[in-house]
């Protein structure tokens, strides 16, 4: 691939990314009131999106081979338990991550 072709390839990636980020804001401009249905989606989507993002992070975990997703499951349980107990976002994230690192480096 020549340098120009590389620039075009990266430019296409930038364009596609910005298209997906700016499109909703272009279609539903600040000046006009947002349609009721879109407002509803705006409120209903976040919880669904965070569910999707958790699964997205785990998409390459194989339940049938390797460690069968056990370190992930345990670390998520630790994260959740810590969060339900202390309700400190940073503490829960740190506990889950350290737990996961110990599990994959020393146990599995």
């Amino acid at each position, binding site marked *: 691939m020549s340098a120009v072709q590389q620039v075009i390839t990266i430019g296409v990636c930038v364009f596609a990314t910005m298209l997906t*980020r700016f499109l909703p*804001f272009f279609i539903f401009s600040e000046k006009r009131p947002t349609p009721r249905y879109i407002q509803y989606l*705006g409120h209903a989507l976040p919880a669904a999106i965070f569910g999707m993002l958790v699964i997205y992070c785990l998409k390459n975990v194989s339940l049938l081979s390797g460690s069968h997703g056990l370190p992930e499951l345990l*670390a998520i349980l630790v994260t959740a338990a810590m969060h339900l107990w202390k309700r400190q976002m940073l503490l829960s994230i740190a506990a889950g991550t350290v737990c996961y690192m110990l599990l994959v*480096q020393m146990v599995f």
Partner: protein
Amino acid sequence: MQQKGMRRRALAAAFPYTIPIFAGFWFLGMTYGIYMNVSGFGFWYPMLMSLTIFGGSLEFVAVSMLLAPFAPLQTFLMALMIQARHLFYGIAMLEKYKNTGWKRFYLIFGLCDETFSINCAAQIPPDIDRGWFMFFVTLLDQIYWVSGSTIGGLVGSLFTFNTEGLDFVMTAMFTVIFLEQWRKEKKHYTALIGIGASVVCLLIFGPDSFLVPTMAVILGLLTIFRKPVERAGGLI
């Protein structure tokens, strides 16, 4: 003077929220920079791509695109598919990004997964300027990502560190935010729709192409069940 104090307070309020992202972005950013370095690209590639694309998953895939024969249309379609989830972020942030002045352009430009998560879920104190808070979250996240990938690109594989598993910090962050959303909802229809649709689509379509079908299913279910979801209330 007052403007300056307001900005500083917004930065101070935003920073703690971005600490997990700092850990995750430095780790993933350096991994990405090292990957580009060992694939034969100078450090300015990961640096400029992180500045302009600012989207980790696409940037990783772009490495193989750059190594493959030139195929702009295929690149475009692939990039659209990987990045399609931003459409949801935009719809969810329409209201929150209103009336943020010139900062709005940068907020939309930098709307990656992690920035979206914080700006969508953070409880911004009433005495903190919303626009500046969200601006600093976006800016700090991008600084972490660009610096991480640049350092990775500079040092390449010379740098060895036993940080295996550190990438879990992102999973843990999304889990915590998911739990927070869960607590806010009276009924858990939308959270369950998100998890259920993702798991089913992942099983059917596999890890590389389940996101777009998942989004379609989520959209369909939220539309069909609009009445009960709205009646349940407690949506943010």
